[in-house]
């Protein structure tokens, strides 16, 4: 089963879509934006280069968690690879648990790379404890998105899952303020943003870099979404693999 997990990680890392969109894109965006605005004061009361770091790490993590779950999973169901696995002694729960674990693991490169570039190129510095807290919340906070990805992969065909995942990543990034602060978009937009897991996910990161603490509202919203999407993913997974 460990080897199964290893091959799951390997195949995603070998996939160009994953590497380009999810790992390199946020880093490149960060470099460009931070190069221009890095020294200005940022929205959360921190230097813009720090604010942007959380934004881009969040965007990368969001993309990684959905891209490494939704599309491969939808493809496997369709292509018959899933049947291959189901006729081996690997139990059904092990398949989904492995997918979840690997998707979570693949969130890490996006986070770490953006952090590394921020430190090296923009000279961002924080106490070690705060780095650890930031990495922890931004990593664990990605759980709802992995669940969402698996739910999409269980529900849709590969042709539909691909655009659906891309669209959701964009929408959630936009609404979550991962590209630019939602404040600039006006009232209605902000009210919608308040409901999304991505807005509060980014909020977790901003609170940590600004104060070292967390806002209860962010924690509750992300956890709530995590539970809701996890439940949906589990239900849809069962429905997609049930033996007729």
């Amino acid at each position: 089963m460990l080897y199964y997990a290893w091959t799951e990680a390997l195949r995603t890392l070998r996939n160009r879509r994953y590497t380009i969109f999810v790992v390199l894109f946020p880093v490149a965006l960060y470099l460009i934006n931070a190069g221009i605005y890095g020294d200005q004061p940022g929205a959360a009361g921190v230097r813009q280069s720090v604010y942007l770091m959380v934004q881009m790490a969040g965007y990368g993590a969001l993309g990684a968690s959905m891209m490494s779950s939704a599309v491969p999973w939808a493809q496997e169901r369709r292509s018959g690879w899933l049947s291959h696995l189901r006729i081996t002694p690997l139990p059904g729960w092990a398949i989904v648990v492995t997918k979840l674990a690997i998707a979570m693991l693949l969130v890490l490169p996006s986070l770490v790379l953006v952090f590394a570039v921020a430190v090296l190129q923009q000279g961002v510095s924080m106490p070690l404890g705060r780095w650890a807290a930031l990495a922890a919340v931004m990593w664990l906070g990605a759980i709802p998105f992995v669940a969402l990805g698996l739910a999409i992969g269980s529900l849709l065909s590969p042709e539909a899952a691909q655009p659906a995942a891309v669209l959701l990543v964009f929408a959630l990034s936009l609404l979550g303020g991962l590209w630019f602060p939602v404040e600039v978009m006006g009232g209605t937009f902000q009210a919608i943003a308040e409901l999304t897991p991505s807005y509060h996910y980014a909020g977790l990161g901003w609170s940590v870099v600004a104060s070292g603490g967390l806002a209860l509202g962010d924690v509750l919203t992300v956890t709530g979404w995590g539970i809701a999407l996890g439940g949906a993913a589990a239900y849809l997974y069962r429905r997609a693999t049930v033996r007729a």
Partner: protein
Amino acid sequence: MNAIVFDHVSKRFGDVLAVDELSLTIAAGATVALLGPNGAGKSTSIGMLLALSRPTRGTIAVHGRTPERAVLAGEVGAMLQQGELIPELSVRELVELVRRLYPAPLGLAEVLELAGLTELARRRAGGLSGGQAQRVRFALALAGAPRLLLLDEPTAAMDVESRRRFWDSMRAYAAGGRTVLFASHYLAEAEEHADRVIVIAGGRVVADGTAAQIKAGAGGQVVRFALGEQPAAGLDRLPGVTAVEVGAGIATLRTRDTDATLAALYRDTALDVRDLELSGLDEAFLALTGRS
């Protein structure tokens, strides 16, 4: 112990009754062909044996347990009719992945050798040809050293050389006392490689026995040769022959026992037999499966 028992198994997909009250028993260690035309219910039966789907009615036992348990215990390996591989992984990684999921698998080198993949081990699955991918599926089926090997149209997409190697490997694998069930469209393939042939059509068993029994039951084989101006008298008295037709200098004999007929044709007649042809496998198969 019986490897496989179907007890009045039916499977319905909406309006289609894919498998209809199927009952059969396959002893452990046998190599059995499941023969039938398109839509006969072969893949559906194999799917139920693998717990990929459940019978609508009836029960299936694999080594005395439910298919689910047999699969989880690593007793079954299969080559499915459809089923793509993961394009980003190499042949070796795919084989290793499946191999390690079983409790007592074959060695990696042995699997690659049996499936004729040693040279292709480092290739990514995404770049394989149809026949090569089929060989990888074979490798995945036997990687775990399952006691029961199910092969759904295993030689589809394989060239002549791959086919020959495939059947050699299949025999080598089966020789260890393992049970093999393969689905096929061709009586010739079944005759050559199986101890027993089960013919199904419309989800029911229409014939069951050795290939020779099946052919005999379906009106036998055909022996055809150029007779020219020679007399046809006596041909109908050759052993096994059930019917004789002569036309345009060609004699066509229908026989229940090809070997006996041919032996007598050469030994007991003074005929000059030219352009001899044996056929009738396809006719026998059509006669059987067209009936239902």
